[in-house]
């Protein structure tokens, strides 16, 4: 009996402002509050509230048979707390139905695994605590930033006690096999890997409103018939996508909400099919084969690798510089500095610096708050310059403070 597993990614970064060279040393507040609020408001109205309402309605209508999974980044949750508690409440309402699972990820939606395992672990723990706090469930399954994944990462996640992990179903690694089964990462023992079925996922996420696509306009019954084709040769259909697909990337006018409204019923018209959360699927299905990903893969851009964040020298220089601060930030143990450092790790900062102009550059441009990748880099590096000098100041102060302590001791 095959299961359909929906997983939606919810993420918003703390975008940094057009932080000028002339601000260094004067302005220690880096975020573009206004921009962050504007974007969050827009996406909340167009997507989060509307889609959450629809999901709740579908769960109720199908009496608990429609199930979905979310991953909400720590930075997104923080923004909900700060600006849109109504959105957070609507996610909590969904959590209460028992039909919704929340995954673990890095709190800052970061690339930390690549640069620091320790930081990676810290951020996962932080995120886990946040999920427990709001949704009173403990995440058992992990998804990394933009499905960045390799064998080593899967093994690390297994050691942290997770039972499942998500990644992209890359053709060259599948080598003719179907993504619609659970796999075991090469080198791991128990953890189960969920592979995104990119073809069917992207039909909804990218092609849905494409007037040049031969299947346009896509209706729920057509899509369900494609899903039903896997009967007998697959167990889990993983439809993974950005939650913003609904109402934001695909506008309401495209009919995406009507599509969503009919889809569960159309899929369940075939009696063999049901919906499961990822944990339920992990419990229900066995590992069928090994998925061997020695190199990093992801779900981003045409390349499905790290090139969306770390392909050009600017991105690499920026990423190396922020992670090189780990020791000095952590040693100070200052909560505020650690938080700023964490937020500066968010992968979006590097995504904006991407210069793959002539193909995927368009997508990068759509999301970028800046005029050019150079601007993204310059502002970011200016911020780091200020942040580094702030850290230095703390060190000077601390040494000063220690000297004072010593003096006091000697006096005493």
């Amino acid at each position, binding site marked *: 009996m095959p299961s359909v597993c929906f997983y939606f990614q919810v993420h918003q970064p703390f975008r940094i402002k057009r932080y*000028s*060279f*002339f601000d260094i040393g004067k302005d220690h507040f880096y975020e573009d509050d206004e921009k962050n609020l504007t974007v969050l408001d827009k996406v909340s109205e167009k997507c989060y509230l509307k889609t959450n309402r629809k999901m709740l309605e579908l769960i109720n209508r199908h009496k608990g048979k429609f199930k979905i999974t979310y991953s909400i980044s720590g930075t997104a949750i923080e923004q909900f707390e700060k600006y849109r508690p109504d959105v957070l409440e609507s996610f909590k309402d969904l959590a209460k139905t028992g039909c919704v699972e929340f995954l673990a990820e890095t709190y800052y939606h970061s690339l930390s695994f690549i640069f620091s395992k320790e930081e990676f672990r810290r951020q996962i723990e932080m995120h886990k605590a946040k999920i427990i706090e709001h949704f009173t469930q403990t995440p058992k399954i992990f998804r990394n930033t933009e499905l960045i994944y390799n064998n080593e990462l899967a093994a690390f996640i297994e050691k942290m006690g997770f039972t499942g992990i998500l990644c992209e179903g890359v053709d060259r690694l599948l080598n003719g096999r179907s993504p619609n089964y659970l796999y075991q990462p090469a080198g791991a023992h128990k953890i189960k890997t969920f592979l995104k079925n990119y073809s069917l996922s992207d039909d909804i996420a990218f092609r849905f409103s494409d007037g040049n696509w031969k299947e346009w306009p896509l209706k729920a019954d057509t899509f369900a018939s494609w899903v039903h084709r896997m009967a007998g040769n697959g167990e889990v259909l993983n439809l993974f996508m950005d939650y913003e697909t609904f109402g934001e990337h695909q506008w309401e006018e495209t009919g995406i909400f009507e599509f969503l409204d009919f889809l569960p019923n159309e899929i369940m018209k075939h009696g063999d099919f049901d919906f499961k959360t990822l944990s339920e699927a992990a419990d229900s299905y066995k590992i069928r084969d090994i998925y061997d990903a020695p190199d990093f893969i992801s779900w981003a851009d045409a390349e499905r690798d790290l090139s969306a964040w770390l392909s*050009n*020298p*600017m991105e690499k*220089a920026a990423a190396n510089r922020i992670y090189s601060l780990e020791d000095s930030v952590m040693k100070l143990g200052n909560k505020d500095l650690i938080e700023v450092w964490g937020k500066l790790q968010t992968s979006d900062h590097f995504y904006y610096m991407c*210069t793959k*102009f002539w193909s995927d550059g368009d997508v990068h441009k759509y999301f970028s708050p800046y*005029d*050019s990748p*150079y*601007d993204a*880099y*310059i502002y970011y*590096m200016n911020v780091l310059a200020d942040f580094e000098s702030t850290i230095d100041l703390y060190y000077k102060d601390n040494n000063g403070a220690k000297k004072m302590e010593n003096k006091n001791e000697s006096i005493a």
Partner: protein
Amino acid sequence: MLGWEFPPVINGGLGVACHDLCIALSKYASVTMIIPKSNPDFVVKNLNLIGLNTIDTKTLRNIGFANENYKNLEDVHFIDAHLNPYYTSKTNGDQPLNFKSQFLKPLKIGNETAEVFHISDLYGGDVIEKVTVFGKLAAKLACTLDFDVIHAHDWMTMIAGMEIKAQTGKPLVMHIHSLEVDRSGPTSKGWVYQIEKKGMEYADVLMPVSHFTGKIIHDYYGIPISKIHTCHNGIRPVVPFKSEKLFKEKMVLFIGRLTRQKGPEYFVDIAEKVLQHNNNVRFVMAGTGEYFNLLLERAALKGIAHRFHLTGFLNLDKVRQLLSMADVYMMPSMSEPFGLSAVEAVQFGVPSVISKQSGVSEVLQGSLKFDYWDTDSAAQYVLALLNDSVLAEKIKEDAYKDLEHISWDSAAQTVISGYKKFNLVHDKITS
């Protein structure tokens, strides 16, 4: 084609652009170029180059106008009479040349006396009469030629273009390299502005060298967008070289006429802001113009004269010498239809900071762009390029990639595709 500046007689970038475009275009079409002055020693392969200084009026007068397309000029009142005392608006091609001009110089041919077009300078003096006489003679001459499209470059040849269209009925394309609004600002209203406006209204197709200029044509001259077909300039390949500076400081370079349009005062302001944070830089301005003294004073007033250099006019070799030493190229133009010098900087591997009010910013992804009034951003970009070699290298590398798409051949192809798009030619031209 109708040109004004043309090698070896050049004043600015226009002559070079016309020349290089003609050469590239000759691969796809047969090109005749009519210019005010030609030098018999200067022969361009595949190009029929005619200087009006070589055609006598006697010959022109004897040309019969049996051409069916020939029309009276009565619908072409393109010049307000009080603005142009020399122009007689009702001429008829059948009549002999019926005007006198200081720019018609007597010439003895055997026993007869004829006249040839003669101007000592392209600009200066009575330019209005110069371009008017040029227009009339070019129109007479054009009637002896077989062609499909009239292609005029800038306002100096607009009267010629209009006259030829009026007399032959052939479609008129105006290639726009620069406009009065660029040179004198948005409040321009003089004779040149008027002739540009009338010319562009009368033309069938406008080919500005950038979308930026196309927008000016629409916004300030009221020309419908539907007539506009942008054709970005190309660049002549060079063999770049690097040379050592004679000083240890970094060098930020400006190349261009020192006139309002090029925003030279902004360069001084940017220099001041940069020097406040990095004293290890010299700012060099290559070029001359009416702002020369003002800039000298401004730099002195700001106390940065020791880091500020005005070279005056430099020839091409000297300019390239500077490009081979520069660390940053700066173009703060207020209104720059294209800005070839920024592409030359790219050829020399110099990262550029250019104003968004320029055509070249549309084709150079690999550059840092600012609004010309935003000197804070410009200064920040200069500082970033000087302090951060990763950024400078990256921009250099990206700009090299842009360079692959900037050529006179692709400019010529765009011109041809424009002819086709507007149905000006049929089958005759291959591409």
